[in-house]
């Protein structure tokens, strides 16, 4: 099988505690894999290991069949691995448009260009504006990113991710704090991330409705380990998931 992203026995321990515990995960091309699990299960930590923000204490990460366990974050990104952060992290002092331009530019190749006028790079500008349009932030393009309201920052996060044109995308709770009115819009944006393009998505989300709507399969994490990884129906029927994660319906 040709998984675009796999982890093999991926573990991260701090002292005695296993935060991430021997996770084996395969993401197929074009697949949308939802990740759920109680707070503190290790979902964000797993993302950190995959993207290289943290170094695993054991195990491997493979991207397109090649090992990337020891690469720094930026090298992984250049191989097509993109992510968003759970806590919004955008470039606060730059304008929204500049934020996206920076991401587009990073995608176009990171060679040093000290003498070119950035603003004059039409293609980059056009690409950036297209991305902003797509996530519905075009009207805020001139605003300073640091002053955006929370939901807008989430959108900008996704815009930054999109601009990088990754083949594998890791989304960490993209819906957190997004107003009810905007949820469908954002869901649509995220859905369009995969669709026909063949990109694969790994998404952590606590909004079950969103997960159920988007995910092809759902992985459940619990105490750092992978509890289950199966179709939404099977997972939702799982008693442990019911008990430890979903609880009773509101």
């Amino acid at each position, binding site marked *: 099988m040709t998984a675009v992203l796999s982890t093999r026995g991926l573990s991260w321990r701090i002292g005695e505690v296993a935060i991430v515990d021997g996770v084996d995960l395969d993401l197929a091309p074009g697949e949308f894999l939802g990740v759920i699990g109680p707070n503190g299960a290790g979902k964000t930590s797993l993302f950190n290991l995959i993207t290289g923000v943290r170094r695993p204490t054991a195990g491997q990460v493979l991207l397109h069949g090649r090992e990337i366990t020891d690469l720094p974050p930026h090298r992984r990104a250049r191989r097509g691995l993109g992510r968003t952060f759970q806590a919004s992290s955008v470039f606060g002092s730059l304008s929204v448009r*500049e934020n996206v331009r920076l991401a587009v530019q990073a995608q176009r190749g990171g060679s040093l260009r000290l003498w070119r006028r950035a603003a004059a790079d039409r293609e980059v500008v056009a690409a950036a504006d297209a991305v902003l349009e797509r996530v519905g932030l075009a009207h805020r393009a001139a605003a300073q990113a640091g002053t955006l309201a929370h939901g807008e920052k989430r959108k900008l996060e996704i815009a930054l991710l999109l601009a990088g044109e990754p083949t594998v995308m890791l989304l960490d709770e993209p819906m957190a704090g997004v107003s009810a009115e905007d949820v469908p819009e954002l869901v649509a944006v995220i859905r369009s991330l995969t669709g026909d393009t063949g990109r694969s998505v790994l998404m952590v989300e606590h909004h079950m409705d969103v997960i159920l709507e988007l995910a092809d399969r759902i992985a459940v994490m619990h105490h750092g380990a992978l509890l289950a990884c199966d179709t939404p129906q099977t997972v939702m029927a799982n008693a442990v998931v019911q008990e430890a994660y979903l609880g009773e319906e509101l």
Partner: protein
Amino acid sequence: MTDLDVAPAPAATAAPARPHRWAALRPWTPLLALALAAVLPYSTLQLPGVFDGPVNSPGTLHLLAVCLIFGALAAGYDLLFGRTGLLSFGHALYFAAGVYGTDILVTRAGLPLWQAALLALTGGATLAALLGAVALRTAGIAFAMVTLAFAQVGAILVARDFGGLTGGEEGLPLDVAGVPAVFVGVTNTVNLYWLALAYLALVVFVVHRVSASPTGRVLAGIRDDERRIGVLGLDPYRFKLVAFTLSGALAAGGGVIYCLLVGGASPHITSSELTLSLLVMVVLGGPATRWGPVIGGMLYMYLDHRLTAFGSSSTVDALPSVLSGPLSQPLFVLGTVFILAVYFFPGGLAGLTTRLATLRRALSRR
């Protein structure tokens, strides 16, 4: 300091206001200012209180040249501090490398000036690249301290007069035999002035060009969130090193010209105080603004030089001793002025124009 050089400031910051009659001229103001500054030495204008002699007197031109060099140095330092968010406490080292490099190569090794200058410049840039490569493995205050430590080693080496090269605390006067005659002697001060002006123009051009370039945008990104830059697929380390090296090279270049201007090197310039002053200059002017650091640097040096005269002036002497004592200490006045500036011009002098614009708008609305 001439108001000519201050003039371009509004062009940089007051963009949002309604289009002005002169708006079309805006892009040209820097060039206009440059041209005016270039012909300034032909003026015999007397500005009593501002300068001791007419504008074209060697003393005034010398002071102006010093101001220009430090304006440029501050602009170069701002590339690091204001635009990339790297707080280096060791920038003086690269400036000193330019000064001492030139001086030693001309005076001790007997090289002609242009060779010495070129070597000092490359040497300064290489030094910055090497030390930067090490220091940038740390971040934040640790980075500031490593750079401070490196600069401190530089200061110790200079003070220890290694191999009799640097002259220790007495400094090393430049042997003018190796220097073209046009740069020697008080009557030729004007040539040094023009040289300093050219250097300032170059630095400002480079800094602006670089910060408007794709790389400049990455630097701004690093300032905000370095981890994010990595995840976008760019290596922050590499970009920081570029900024560090470039900034160091610009400082070394300034050192070459300063060495010519002052006619030698003295260990004052290796002190961490110089880096601190650079920081002060940038903040005084307004970090990451177009003209702020330049203005800050020029103003600081102007005050630094003029305050010694002010301190010994008769106006100060006539005051009661509670006042005249402190006021006769230039550093006291400078420190106080600086503290006040931090309070009353947050965002630096460059921020002042925006604030004035807001004020004007508020008034016109009434």
